[in-house]
């Protein structure tokens, strides 16, 4: 009997904590059996600044998800984001050891170890080692095993982060009595949901514009080429509106959601909007153009930074499938046009895949959590997670579905 865990995908975002509980159905189906959300407190720009507050809201979301699912989460797949995440490309180059220059497993393992052995500065830990291509004697190969060549080169994109900040995230989960089975950075989780295989093959950039951060992942030839985090998100737009219009952050958020758009139209010049809308003392009219200008400026800045970070890797021929926007801030009307003009590549809004049947999860805000769940359940299916870790009593409890 195959033992499938009930797993929880946890995204501790700047605006909300999302927990999705899922299980495998047969060989191919994924079943989302529970969902929990809580407004985040104590998290800024994807990083925990108040551990206690972050624990409270995360545990509340976990509890809500377990109750909704009617099951106990047994393992957690956790997303990670924040400005502390950095990436770099490193290669492992080894000579082929066999006298006939046929590449064997040992050569590959040596090259992998070589690629992964770079020490990090103190206080940094690796999050991912993302394999993004092999070369044999200078030519790109899909799988060098049993091929002939003299020099094997294995390329990895390494993502690392601040150990303390990563530990905080992990310990928030541990405080609930759960262990983190695996950790995935938000951009990869979102990318796995948004981009299809053919798009990854042709080259696609997935940009998840959240509240506190903007995470991106660049695919080409079916592999992850690059990831990154820009500490600009929807919150910055709100702050800009609040400062620029001299209104409270609550009003700024309200204006952003109700009226905000990323592109200015000529007809917007003369329109105004009332601050309170009920002739209260302090009521004043605010030009809509001012709102749009502030928003547009920040969005254009965001895409400008993104283009600068990606540099030559972002071009029409290298990213043939274009740019996919997701995340809550991608709901801003006109953002696609700004992205297209700012990045110089065709952009569009992403859609969560069709197997996500629940309507409430089809919004762009859930692409990261869905990607986590999908990743976690596929790990279960592939049997990569070792079985038999549960004790006898826990297994019986699982069978009885009461623990």
């Amino acid at each position: 009997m195959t033992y499938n865990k009930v797993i929880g995908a946890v995204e501790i975002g700047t605006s909300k904590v999302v927990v999705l509980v899922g299980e495998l159905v047969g060989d191919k189906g994924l079943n989302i059996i529970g969902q929990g959300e809580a407004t985040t407190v104590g998290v800024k720009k994807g990083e925990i600044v108040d551990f206690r507050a972050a624990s409270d809201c995360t545990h509340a979301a976990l509890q809500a998800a377990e109750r909704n699912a009617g099951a106990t989460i047994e393992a957690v797949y956790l997303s990670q984001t924040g400005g502390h995440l950095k990436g770099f490309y490193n290669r492992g180059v080894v000579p082929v050891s066999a006298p006939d220059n046929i590449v064997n497993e040992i050569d590959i393992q040596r090259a992998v170890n070589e690629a992964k052995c770079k020490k990090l500065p103190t206080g940094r830990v690796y999050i991912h080692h993302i394999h993004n291509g092999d070369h044999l004697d200078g030519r790109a190969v899909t799988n060098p095993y049993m091929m002939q060549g003299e020099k094997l080169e294995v390329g990895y994109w390494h993502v690392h982060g601040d150990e303390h900040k990563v530990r905080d995230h992990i310990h928030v989960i541990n405080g609930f009595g759960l262990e983190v089975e695996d950790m995935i950075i938000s951009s990869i989780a979102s990318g796995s949901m948004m981009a299809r295989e053919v798009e990854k093959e042709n080259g696609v950039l997935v940009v998840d514009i959240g509240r506190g951060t903007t995470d991106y992942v660049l695919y080409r030839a079916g592999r992850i080429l690059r990831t990154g985090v820009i500490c600009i998100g929807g919150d910055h737009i709100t702050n800009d509106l609040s400062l620029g219009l001299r209104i409270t952050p609550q009003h700024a958020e309200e204006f952003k959601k109700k009226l905000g758009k990323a592109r200015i139209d000529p007809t917007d010049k003369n329109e105004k909007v009332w601050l309170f809308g009920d002739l209260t003392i302090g009521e004043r009219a605010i030009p809509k153009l001012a709102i749009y200008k502030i928003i547009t400026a920040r969005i254009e800045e965001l895409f400008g930074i993104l283009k600068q970070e990606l540099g030559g890797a972002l071009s029409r021929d290298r990213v043939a499938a274009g740019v996919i926007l997701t995340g809550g801030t991608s709901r801003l009307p006109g953002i696609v046009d700004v992205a297209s003009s700012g990045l110089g590549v065709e952009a569009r809004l992403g859609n969560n895949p069709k197997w996500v049947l629940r309507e409430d999860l089809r919004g762009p805000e859930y692409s990261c959590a869905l990607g986590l769940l999908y990743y976690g359940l596929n790990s279960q299916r592939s049997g990569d997670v070792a079985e038999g870790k549960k004790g006898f009593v826990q297994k019986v409890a699982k069978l009885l579905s009461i623990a």
Partner: protein
Amino acid sequence: MKGKKNIDRAVARSWRNISQIAGRKAVTKIARKRKILGYCKISAIGLTMVAVMGGLFFGVRLVVSGYDSINLAAPSENLRRILFRSDGVLSHEWVQEIVRIPITTEMMDVDIFAIKDLLESHGQVRKVEVWRRFPDQLEISIEEREPLLRARVPALDGGFDELLVAVDGTIYPGFDYSRVDLREIPYLGGITFRREAKGFAPVPSVEILRELLVFARKHYPEIYRTWKVVSCENFSGARNRLGEVIKIEGTDVREIIFSPDGFEGQLERLARVVEYSEQRRISVVKRIDLSVGEQVSVQYYAKLNPGAIPRDTLSR
């Protein structure tokens, strides 16, 4: 690589090297509650399993080792008392005389079937039930035969024995009957009593006699009381055969002839004749023949009221 596997020492520090043990401060109220609930559930599982295993163990042990008998009875002692009841006249002393069980007999040594057979061998006893009432009592319940007639049968020593004829024809010596009660029972005459190994053969045709006598005793007790002898001299037991009559000799009516059929009508006519005679101050009637259908043949003495008839002149 996924899952918690040891990282090759050549690879630098990974997030998996971070210990996943949260301090107490990381445990919120929600988490604490969840933990306690989890412990409670596991304890419940454990207790349930212990209970199931224990139940299985004892169940198997019970089945394998066999059923233990449970002694519900009080410990057995010697027989001390015999409780006796009867629906007739037999007394406790009679039973004790017959049964004769020593006091030192243990209860389980008392052969209740032998006692039953012994008591049922007496003709007066129709049915016996015997029980042990632990720790020291025996209970005997008797159903007796009801006497219908008396019979004087030749004894082996040349005299006569006075026996009783039950309603089912059984002939038996009566015990514990009062003389007063017996005096009211008429004699049976006109029959040859056949001796058998154990007493006498049952009287045939007694059922028809019973019909007549029980009816008369119930509905015409004053007339019945005067009957002294029921003679089957001309009665073989057949109801419809020609010439079959039952003759009754009494004190007030010296001879009453009954047909074996239709006793109710005959007795009614007899009662009218007796009443008529009494009205005429005729105390003794010689003969009343009721066997000729609806008519009644009455004979009076030439000298009315001849007086009491000596006992020995009554035919047997």
